[in-house]
């Protein structure tokens, strides 16, 4: 699946979920690549963001980052520092 990751106010990334799945499986000591379903956290890792510095929205609704990606369009809001 083709996924658009829109980091608000910054860049938009076009990712192939299969490629993200491969990278996620490579990064883990165990697990069969065929079973690896990339999560929103895996997408964030691909665009070099930490889940602790952003919120991930799908259709305007926050999603838990450990969940498998089910949408082809993901919005990422970076946390605003300060007060």
């Amino acid at each position: 699946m083709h996924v658009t990751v829109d980091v608000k106010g910054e860049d938009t990334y076009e990712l192939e979920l299969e490629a993200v799945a491969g990278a996620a499986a490579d990064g883990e000591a165990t697990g069969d690549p065929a079973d690896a379903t990339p999560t929103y956290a895996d997408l964030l890792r691909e665009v070099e963001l930490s889940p602790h510095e952003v919120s991930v929205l799908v259709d305007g609704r926050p999603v838990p980052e450990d969940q498998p990606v089910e949408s082809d369009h993901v919005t990422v809001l970076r946390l605003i520092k300060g007060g």
Partner: protein
Amino acid sequence: MDCNRCNEEAVMHAAYSGAHLCEDHFRESVEKRVRRRVRRDDLVPHDATPENPQTWVIGLSGGKDSVVLTRILHDTFAEDPRIELVGLTIHEGIEGYRDKSVEACVELCEDLEIRHELVSYEEEFGVRMDDVVEDDPENMAACAYCGVFRRDLLSKYAEELEADLLLTGHNLDDEAQTALMNVLEGDVEQMAKHFDASLGPLSEREEQDEFVPRAKPLRDVPEKEVALYAHVDDLPAHITECPHASEAYRGEIQQLLYDLEENHPGTRHSILSGYEELATIAAEKYAGDDGADLQECVECGSTTTRDVCRKCSLLEALV
């Protein structure tokens, strides 16, 4: 993915606890942590009564942290005649940035029917941060000047408003960063000061007649969750970063903590809880040292360890 506590869809996952929570249970969880911190830090003294209410001044910048803090404290104490909340906003003179967040503060305080006070660097000191960064006589980062001026005005107005407590919206990430910075700098005396200034339970802090005590009730809540709370509660938090923000060392520590938290969930919590214990021990060791060399600034009369306080010497350099 369902919420762990009901059948609603989860909106968040906290890796440090394993919890998946829906909007309502997430909000409840944040509020519970803030109220537990208020209790643990003994913020409501036993002698507070409706006839002798406590004034709590909240440093309200209009950003997500202070807006969420104000909202939760309001919801907790709106019906409690022992506590009166006041929002205190400081305008630093940053074009196009602070104007909008002041609007967020005004809107929030009107909604919640909380008294709101607005003060500015320009009226108080005759300077604006936009000009300070241009001038930069001390060759420092903008935050170094701004922090000195902000702390001075927060203290001054907390006193003028006869505050019993000055509350700020520092979250878990902020405090874990500060803790780690103090550890890495080897500054044990600073840990003791941190305990007496804002970390320790009020009943255990060394008496400091010169300053209004401070508290940080959001410090158990990760920054990401504060932002999520503001989002799901649709709070009028201002969402622009300060154009002058530049704290290089803190940024480095922040990145380090993101990486650690990713591989070892719960690191921020354990850093802060260990640090609080160390700070308690440090405060006992340094007890009595504080205040010995405090005096009044010859220029403005504020409490300082020098003849002329840091704020006055910076203002002197700027003019």
